[in-house]
């Protein structure tokens, strides 16, 4: 089916919440840095993963596992061990970024379905087809840097299913190659599994505003009524040439409800919702809205229009000051 709804699950409660509210599939990670949301206390141990799979499969839904950080040679077994566990548990697909790990997975478990993670950073059909030819990947999650006509061009030239991000926090989108936070912390998200390690983050309410620091480096100072964002280096405000502003990017959230008819038309296989770090309340709210929207567009694509109630609900949940269609929509092109 086109436009499968893929929702985030940081815990078993979130997984059940997503499924109860209409997710076609959920994605999750194990409790270590083998995935890109390696926060303390988040994610699944083996027993929870097994219970999540049982819950999903009984209801005809699927569970995907993000194994999308890059293994280091001295801890290689942690990543292959995670593939072993995924295969043993009967995970419906593993989402991988590292070609070495893909080779391991395809050799050891030829039946295991492989998805190419957004962290793999494949933006052309040549790159997507390369992963197909060598590792038999069945789906690719495209980085959020392509316009919809560019996405359509990829879809036309590959038989790999294409998954797009539909909603959630945006970053600088140098996916799989971003080293910004290691400038402050010595750890990059690609191997440590988190942009700003919580142990390095400090929040402080001061008379001049709410300050966020990463390993002592001031990222931002929010005025009294300004919306706050995640404490990542890419979203900070810095003094450059005598001016203080979002020197890298402004914190915004992606919201592509408006583009659903086009995504359906060009044959997008699945829409991914960001936010495994968020709580079950977020998962419930966002899944409910997207389920309703996807059902509506499938029923009547020509007459589809997001309702103000959906947009209000999503706006409330978002990081930063505004929503954007991201790179998908480039009207000047």
């Amino acid at each position, binding site marked *: 089916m086109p436009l499968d709804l893929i929702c985030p699950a940081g815990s*078993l409660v979130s997984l059940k919440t997503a499924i109860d509210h209409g997710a076609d599939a959920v994605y999750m990670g194990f409790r270590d840095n083998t995935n890109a949301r390696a926060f303390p206390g988040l994610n699944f141990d083996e027993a929870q993963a097994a219970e999540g799979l049982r819950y999903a499969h009984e209801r005809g839904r699927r569970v995907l596992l993000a194994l999308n950080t890059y293994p280091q040679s001295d801890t290689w077994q942690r990543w292959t061990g995670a593939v072993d566990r995924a295969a043993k548990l009967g995970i419906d697909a593993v989402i991988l970024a590292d070609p070495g790990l893909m080779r391991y997975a395809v050799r050891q478990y030829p039946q295991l379905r492989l998805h190419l993670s957004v962290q793999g950073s494949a933006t052309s059909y040549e790159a997507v087809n390369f992963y197909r030819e060598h590792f038999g990947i069945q789906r690719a999650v495209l980085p959020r840097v392509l316009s919809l006509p560019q996405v359509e061009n990829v879809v036309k030239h590959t038989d790999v299913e294409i998954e797009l991000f539909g909603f959630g926090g945006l970053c600088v989108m140098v996916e799989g190659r971003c080293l910004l936070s290691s400038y402050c912390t010595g750890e990059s998200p690609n191997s440590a599994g988190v942009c700003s390690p919580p142990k390095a983050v400090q929040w402080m309410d001061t008379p001049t505003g709410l300050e966020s620091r990463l390993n002592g480096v001031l990222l931002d100072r929010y005025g009294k009524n300004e919306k706050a964002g995640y404490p990542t280096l890419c979203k900070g405000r810095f003094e450059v040439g005598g001016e203080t502003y979002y020197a890298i990017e402004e914190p915004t959230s992606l919201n592509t409800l408006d583009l659903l008819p086009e995504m359906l038309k060009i044959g997008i296989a699945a829409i991914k919702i960001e936010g495994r770090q968020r709580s079950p309340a977020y998962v419930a709210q966002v899944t409910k809205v997207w389920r309703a929207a996807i059902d509506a567009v499938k029923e009547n694509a020509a007459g589809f229009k997001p309702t103000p109630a959906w947009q209000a609900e999503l706006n409330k949940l978002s990081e930063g000051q505004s929503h954007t269609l991201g790179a998908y929509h480039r009207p000047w092109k």
Partner: protein
Amino acid sequence: MLMPVVPTSLGRLIARLPSAPPSLAFSLAANRLLWPALQTLDWQPLAGRRYAIRVKDLGLSLRFAVGQRGFAPDSGAPDLTISATARDFLLLLARREDPDTLFFSRRLVSEGDTELGLIVKNLLDALDPDAVLQRLPAPLARAAQRLMAA
């Protein structure tokens, strides 16, 4: 729509009380009402950590630690301070709002050890709401169900 939890006049009265009795009262109440549900979690890694909950609109500061036997009032410097209004704390407890949502809109402030804050948040998020409701005293469970469905 939820109404303010405590009338303003009562709030002003509470704000004038010293902080030790409310912390003690909070710990006693939490042990009686919440601990049966919370004791299923693994608090061992968090032994000795000190928390403060600041209920801004009531001027209340509740200081405590959570050990193997439950909540205990504490007067030492907190490792983690969470501030919000009574209504927002209730929305969080009822899982009607996501803490990040409240945080982005500046309704919730977390100060101190960020990692500890995330560990506690993720620990509480992992609680199965149905199991919690079963372990709450009946009147509280009914109130919580009303709040979650409101």
